[in-house]
């Protein structure tokens, strides 16, 4: 079910070739297809106009290739993130992709949704370590971009075009990543206090350290503000940062718990870093949110009033930012729209979409393009 709309048919292909064939046939028949991974981000987007076929990737969950010494891994799109991380952990490595709303994300779903998590402060998003993609296109073809090596400028970087496109240009069937060795040493530190101003000053102090945290989260989830930083480096280095920052030791288990945050109603506020605290102040109290002061992203939970929501969105847009629904009841979505003001380049995006999906087979109506 997507926004209360169920598909007439569900298909669960066992291979990329099968998926591409099913997609091609559906497109030729004029059907509307929504790709489904772990279903964790199905709340994203506007309510679909039509929904005939659910194309599930869970039958494609194999590890295709993993070469720890080359720091590269290739997996099928339906592999759950946790399964991939477990595989990498056996070689002391990891993918710095730690999205909220877990567990249960599939790799393909995550890439299509473009979600990320706290570690983007240091490692960036999937955009920065996705090195190759294989995508099934609505005309039934399978196409690759990038490769399986960590550095590559051969051909256009179409990985980026599919990332975060909510599967509206094609269905991701396989992905290759650059992976990272686990830090030699790691610790978590926390700070708690009542006021946003002081919390923000503490965050700035952490961010201007000679070795800033790899993740820094500011939470207001009921009763005061909490800052939690994740410090990674050599043993002596992390010890020095703990000393300089002077925060309390925090439980390393925080991060796993933190990644479980998600809601029936939540939205992502994204703006240049310097404008984030001003926007957080605009959220109607008692607002529940968690913010990334070093990045410029915050997640806002359980908003109710559509007018207040739109006011915050307009303020974000006035600063060059955005407020995007990650999940909300269909009526709320219809009232405010999932995406907000279209970007100035929407014409070009639409032409691209038309070139890939001329019959609007893929998730019609959901994406902003």
């Amino acid at each position, binding site marked *: 079910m997507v926004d209360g709309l169920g598909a007439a048919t569900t298909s669960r292909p066992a291979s990329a070739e099968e998926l591409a064939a099913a997609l091609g046939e559906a497109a030729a028949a004029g059907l509307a297809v929504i790709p489904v991974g772990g279903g964790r981000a199905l709340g994203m987007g506007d309510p679909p106009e039509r929904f005939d076929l659910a194309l599930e990737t869970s039958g494609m969950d194999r590890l295709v290739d993993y070469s720890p*010494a*080359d*720091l*590269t891994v290739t997996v099928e799109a339906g592999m759950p993130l946790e399964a991939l991380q477990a595989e990498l952990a056996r070689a*002391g490595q990891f993918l710095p992709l730690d999205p909220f709303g877990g567990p249960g994300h599939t790799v393909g779903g995550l890439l299509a949704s*473009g979600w990320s998590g706290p570690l*983007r402060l240091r490692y*960036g998003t999937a*955009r*920065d370590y996705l090195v190759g993609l294989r995508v099934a*296109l609505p005309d039934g*073809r399978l*196409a*690759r*971009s990038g*490769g*399986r*090596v*960590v*550095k*590559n*400028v*051969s*051909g*256009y*970087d*179409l*990985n*980026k*075009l599919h*990332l*975060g*496109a909510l599967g509206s240009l094609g269905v991701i069937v396989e992905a290759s990543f650059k992976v990272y*060795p686990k830090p*030699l040493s790691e610790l978590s530190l926390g700070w708690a206090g009542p006021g946003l101003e002081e919390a923000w000053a503490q965050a700035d102090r952490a961010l201007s350290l*000679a*070795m800033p945290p790899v993740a820094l989260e500011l939470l207001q989830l009921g009763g005061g503000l909490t800052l939690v930083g994740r410090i990674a*480096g*050599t043993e*002596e*280095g992390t010890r020095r*940062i703990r000393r300089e920052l002077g925060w309390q030791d925090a439980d390393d288990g925080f991060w796993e718990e933190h990644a479980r945050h998600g809601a029936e109603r939540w939205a992502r506020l*994204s*703006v*240049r870093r*310097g404008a984030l605290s001003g926007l957080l102040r605009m959220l109607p109290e008692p607002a529940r949110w968690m913010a990334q002061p070093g*990045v410029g*992203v915050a997640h806002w939970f359980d908003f109710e009033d559509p007018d207040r929501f739109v006011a915050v969105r307009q303020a974000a847009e006035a600063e*060059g*930012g*955005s407020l*995007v629904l990650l999940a909300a009841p269909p009526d709320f979505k219809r009232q405010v729209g999932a995406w907000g003001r*279209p*970007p100035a*380049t929407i014409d*070009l*995006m639409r032409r*691209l*979409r038309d*070139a890939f999906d001329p019959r609007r087979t893929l998730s019609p109506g959901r994406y902003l393009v």
Partner: protein
Amino acid sequence: MTMNRGAIEQLRKAVGADHVVSDPHDLVIFERDASITGSLPDAIVFPFGAQEVSTVVKIARAHGLPVVPRGAGTGLSGGAVTIRGGIALSLARMHRILEIDPVSRTAMVEPGVVNADLSVEAARKGLFYAPDPSSQKACTIGGNAAENSGGPHCLYYGVTTNHIIGMEAVLADGSIRWVGGDDPDRPGLDLLGMLVGSEGTMCVITRIQVRLLPIPEAVRTLMAAFPTIETASHAVSSVIGHGIVPAALEMMDEVTVGAVEAHYHAGYPTDAGAVLLVEVDGLTESAEELMVEIRRILEANEAFACKLAADDAERQLLWAGRKGAIGALGRIKPNYYLHDGVVPRTRLPEVLHSVGEIGRHYRLPVANVFHAGDGNLHPNILFDLREPGVMDKVEKAGEEMLRACIDAGGTLSGEHGIGLEKNAFMPWIFTPDDLQQMHRVKDVVDPKGMFNPGKVFPDPTRRDARLVARSGVAAEANWW
């Protein structure tokens, strides 16, 4: 193609008569970039500002002229070569650093800003721009963005695309567009990511917003010698296997070391089969701690004559040898030709072995200087252009070396781009469906194919099938 007088007149009016060059004698200066095939443009135009670029694009469109954007012309894949004539659009006059914002740690620059100049300017505010191509003293940020350039420090910091936040670009219809921006999770398709690295085939970049990073507290640079390329390669793998990703991990082979040492006296042992440069940065304690560990790992892998740079002057000297390596190779032969295939790093020893075999087969000296950490090879084929028939051998040898990279699971280019040089090889790594996907995008963005025609995609109409018509002159490459 010859350009009609009307077009020339319109261009002069658009950018000023002094900023249009059309005398055949003068056009020769833009005939080529830093290597391969040359081809004359019909006019060279030096616009100032996006508005003028837009006007030039509209004039070109009206007259059906190709437009080939050009930065410093240091590219190695023929990206700036006007293979079908038309307008060579130089962004050289647009070379201002418009803003450096120490709070948001970003800079706004014009495309003609020289890469190294940006870091010099940013350093006044304690910041630096991470991508550092070896040609950084000459190459421009606009060219880097078009080619998605790399550099030694990309092992840890990532390549150009990881550091560009937004761009202003002029599209084929002459519209001036801003793509990207400092909203970290912009809704909509990632047009910025699509345009970076599109090799001048989709747009003309007129302004660039880049991310800057704080200059690390400490930098430690170690030089280590190894008996063979194989032992050095294993040492590299062992460092990374220990969970350490240094800021840079660069290798030079025996041939390179000999030439470099004679030229720069950087202190490389000339009896080494390979020399490795390793750099780590960060907190003082961490850099020290890491370097001790790295040195231990390297020495356990047969490293000898390890030398830690004692100060910045020593560090600069160690790097001068690496960055100036290609110029130094002029001591062996006057001309060079290099590829930049990438392989999974563990396959380096066998691929380098094949590269050596290929060189021996064609009786051409080969000097390897490359980014060992990310498996990005740079085999330099050395030759003397005056030797009859040598170009055919160079061309064949280069092609076979690339083939060896592909056979090992690698790719055609790590940081130089496909351009004119390797477009014929694209079907080695991409199926017709893969290429068709790329073409779909090109056709949407540039439906008439006016931007940099004949590049990236295989070109069946190519009038000159020769890969290397005029290759780089090592002595000219003293910025390398």
